[in-house]
């Protein structure tokens, strides 16, 4: 499978996430769109790791190469950071709901004045 297909798929998912951040006002949906963008980048990293593996494995088939495993560990660390980010972010959203009884991001404009 050519790498361009994976790049276009991941870029499209990323842009859908960007559009979601721009057009929705519910803070939880905005947060979910950020998760969508993180996942599209993860997919792209895994695809590039397999491309890198295939390129360096082209000449010598019998040597067990571990090239490209670093990218998959990066994806693992991205998932770790995302899990920590979600726990703190949802706590902030719950605190905001407790104060203003809404999850509308337009209520968070008090820094403007």
């Amino acid at each position, binding site marked *: 499978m050519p790498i361009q297909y994976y790049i276009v798929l991941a870029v499209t998912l990323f842009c859908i996430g960007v559009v979601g951040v721009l057009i929705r006002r519910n803070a939880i949906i905005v947060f979910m769109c950020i998760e969508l963008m993180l996942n599209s980048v993860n997919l792209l990293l895994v695809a590039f790791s397999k491309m890198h593996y295939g390129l360096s494995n082209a000449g010598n088939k019998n040597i067990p190469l571990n090239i490209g*495993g670093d990218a998959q560990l990066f994806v693992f660390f991205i998932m770790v950071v995302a899990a920590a980010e979600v726990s703190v972010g949802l706590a902030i959203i719950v605190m905001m709901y407790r104060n203003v009884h809404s999850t509308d991001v337009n209520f968070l404009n008090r820094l403007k004045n």
Partner: protein
Amino acid sequence: MTATEILFWVLSALALFSALMVLISKNPVHSVLWLIVVFFSISGHYILLNAQFLAIVNLIVYAGAIMVLFLFVIMLMNLNSSTEPQKNSLIKLAGVVAGCLLLTVFVSAVRSADEIKNSQVAMSDGSIGLIENLGKTLFTQYVVPFEISSILFLSAMVGAVVIGKKE
């Protein structure tokens, strides 16, 4: 068309359709459920790429833990489509146009890149995605970031408790 290609196209179409449905759905609970479908299709892509460890971790961490946390918060706040705030349609249109322009820039940059022309993704061969090789690399080369991530989790846990508790 081989079975791998058919699976690739089906999973890609499913991922894009459900990602669009995340945006379109008025009810936040439906958005969460569509996002779970997106995560399942991305896990299918990982299995196609022979990254089995990441596929399982994606299912357990994202579709299992994080999305349940989202559903829990949404149901705790009793959000539904009647309480959903709406932006006016001009801002929505501007957002969609901006996203489409960003997509156009990215796709044209990919199409004009010479470095990745004729590069193939090794779909099913290779064992770098198996847990044996990843674990060896993780606990030899990347053991310091692994320990730091445990400190990150500890601070995130303390932060969530401190932010979430009533004063």
